[in-house]
């Protein structure tokens, strides 16, 4: 008996809550009969389409990198994706309040923070390092790095149209706090023994809520000096996003939940805007005289060539500009069927699609089981596959007095680097925990 209790607790500690008082599909709140006050919800999502095992290999009884001579080109490069991406998102719901309206609808207001960052590196970068330049030319324009921090103020409304169909929507006012975005429209490298040509046309946008990056005499952004405050102060951006959803209980025991989340974006004001643009061609050190063949003079020539390259790569300062940046758009579909012989147990199937502007979309499909004891606890388990391979998840909630503690844990397989927690394989990982006060 004690063992069973321990197992339950072990399952719940890292687990995630079932979506009562949903921050997902707004239509799901239509089924709530009483109000709630969410006093905290923390969610951390990490997605990577390649793992550390694509860069670390075993050879001769030791760990080596993919660039080690004992690792073949195919072995290393074959494990990489055309665009190798890492995406992380943290959602922190500070406060949510939900109440049943005088009519049939259900209202929610939510205040939260979200930060996300991502980086994408094209496979060609590793191809050049590993194999050399024999496959030239290279398109490196999928290189991307960004990070955002913004606050959300949301109002949601869910309406049961009929006993079977509910609709819901949520409008989110977004206040941008900080954002950085490095995007390349053109980033091409042609390399041969005759010449290297780098063709770049890239934007770097950085909000200047606090300070403005200096500009040197030649008009380049000077990251070593900062001055003044940004023009807009706080916030640095403003935006709007909408969530829509429906819940359809087609027949007894079966429900279908569909939602589209985060349709919208933020109009950021990037006070520190820069443009790296131009073509750099290196055909070797030109017109070397015999006097210049000494090491220090050669170093000077090389330095001059490097400075020419920097003149193309370094971003030229531009006037501050507004840029509309969309949020990663998600579409979710979930079907649940309560087994007629034991209605507390449901069979679930779900799928998720998230589109990013900078890398391949994330998608997954899962199947699972849910066990629900209203007023006591709930437990769910699922597994499936998707863009990052096999995924599984456990979720649960425990009601205690008027509080509901919920948690969700999703992960893939493949393990992590010990003590580093870096996934070894392509992975989707999510950890969420929250606490709700149920207003009776």
């Amino acid at each position, binding site marked *: 008996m004690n063992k069973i209790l321990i197992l339950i607790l072990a399952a719940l500690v890292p687990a995630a809550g079932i979506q009562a008082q949903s921050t997902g599909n707004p239509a799901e709140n239509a089924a709530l009969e009483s109000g709630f006050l969410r006093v905290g919800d923390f969610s951390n999502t990490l997605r990577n389409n390649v793992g550390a095992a694509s860069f670390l290999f075993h050879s001769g009884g030791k760990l080596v990198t993919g660039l080690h001579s004992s690792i073949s080109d195919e072995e290393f490069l074959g494990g990489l994706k055309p665009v190798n991406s890492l995406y992380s998102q943290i959602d922190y719901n500070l406060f949510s309040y939900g109440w049943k309206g005088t009519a049939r609808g259900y209202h929610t207001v939510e205040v939260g923070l979200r930060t996300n960052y991502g980086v994408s590196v094209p496979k060609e970068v590793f191809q050049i390092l590993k194999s050399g330049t024999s496959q030239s030319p290279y398109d490196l324009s999928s290189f991307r790095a960004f990070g955002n921090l913004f606050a959300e103020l949301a109002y949601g409304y869910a309406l049961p149209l009929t006993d079977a169909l509910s609709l819901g929507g949520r409008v989110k006012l977004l206040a941008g706090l900080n954002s950085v975005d490095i995007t390349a429209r053109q980033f091409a490298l042609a390399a041969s023994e005759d010449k290297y040509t780098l063709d770049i046309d890239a934007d770097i946008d950085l909000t200047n809520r606090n300070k403005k990056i200096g500009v040197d005499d030649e008009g380049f952004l000077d990251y070593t000096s900062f001055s003044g405050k940004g023009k807009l102060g706080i916030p640095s951006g403003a935006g709007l996003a909408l969530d829509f959803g429906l819940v359809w209980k087609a027949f007894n025991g079966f429900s279908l939940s569909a939602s589209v989340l985060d349709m919208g974006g933020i109009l950021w004001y990037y006070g520190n805007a820069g443009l790296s643009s131009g073509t750099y061609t290196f055909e070797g050190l030109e017109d070397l005289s015999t006097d210049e063949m000494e090491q220090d003079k050669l170093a000077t020539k090389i330095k001059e060539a490097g400075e020419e390259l920097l003149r193309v790569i370094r971003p030229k300062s531009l006037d501050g500009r507004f840029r509309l940046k969309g949020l990663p758009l998600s579409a979710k579909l979930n079907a649940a069927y309560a087994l007629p012989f034991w209605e507390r147990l449901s069979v679930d199937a779900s799928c998720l699609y998230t589109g990013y502007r900078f890398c391949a979309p994330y998608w997954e499909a899962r199947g699972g089981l849910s066990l629900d*004891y209203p007023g006591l606890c709930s437990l769910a388990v699922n597994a499936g596959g998707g863009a990052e391979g096999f995924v599984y998840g456990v979720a649960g909630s425990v009601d205690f007095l008027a509080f509901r503690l919920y948690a969700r844990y999703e992960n893939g397989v493949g393990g992590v680097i010990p*003590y580093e927690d870096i996934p070894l394989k392509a992975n989707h990982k999510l950890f969420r925990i929250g606490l709700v006060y149920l207003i009776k």
Partner: protein
Amino acid sequence: MKVFGHPVLLCLLALSPLWSCGNPDYDVSKGVDREVTLFSDEVGVPLGDIAPITLKSLFEGAGIGSAITMVASEDEDGYLVIEEDKSFYNNYTMLLYSSMPDPTAPGTFAVDDYEGTLGSNAALLAAFGFAMSPQSFCLYATNPLTEEIAVSGKVTLSSMELEEAPAETLVSEEYSALKVPAAAQKEVFFSVERSGGKTFYACKLDNMKLHLPADMLTKDTDGGMGMFELGYRYKGFAQLASDFPAPIPIDVNDLSLPLAAYRVKEARIRAEISSEIPMTLEISSLKALVKQTDEDGNTTLVPAEGVRVSADISVASGTYGNPVVSPVELLIEAVEGTIPDIDGLQLEVAIKAPTGEGDRRMNMNETISFNNIRTTISGGITLQGNE
């Protein structure tokens, strides 16, 4: 308590987080070998161009600039020449006047025969295959009188006497009463020019006579102190007529290329050499040298074993203003393993006579350029990272 009725399911749920536990096979805290080999297929790198190097700076760079100027000189147009300007007869009007049997009538004065050398240094160059071509010889005279004079005589120009080739008469010409205008200063009255053939080495001037007017003293604006002068000039342009007798060995002892640390297997260097120099240059032998320390601690450079250096370097001859481009290639490859540190090079340069038509004169302003120098490294470059 029905919730506890599914212990198997709960066990699975409880164990599921373990699937993401650390994999001890990837414990980076035990160290990661950070040796990396970059560009394992191949990588090409443009190295650049070496600006035109003049023949003059090439000679100076090779340390033979002063030796060249001791043998030959550079004329006002930059050509490498051997010149001789010899004044072999000088006399005052008054003295000539007094030596004439009847100074009131036109008369003839016999000048002593003269033998002299011309391009003596040309013989030194000839030992290396250089010939003087074209070459010119002329006689000149200075006439202090207000009336023209004339000169007669015979010129014989001969080659140098060598063991295998006795002196050969190259020019033998008589000239008669060639006029020298009034008040002429080193006026050329006789000249010979030759292209090709042997180098003029010696001159012999026989039967020279000055045909002088009557009453010279009255025609000398210096009142008899005017000076008659006879002389000759020789100018020969140096050009390579035949191949150097033997390749020139060149040792480069201070190279210090630290290649061993990068474990390079093969490096190929290519370039286009544009040459105006009218001689063909070929690398006939090329060896990489490495340091070897004997038991006493003495270090010497010895040919590297396990490294093959092959050069396809033949720089075709050009002419001044008309460079000829030659593609060249140098391959350094490890016979086994990787290329060691290379501390020097031992090469032999064969210098051959120019091919093709055109002006073959050596000009110190002629240039050689190394263009589009690029390298291709195959098999990767290994770097040792710090753990």
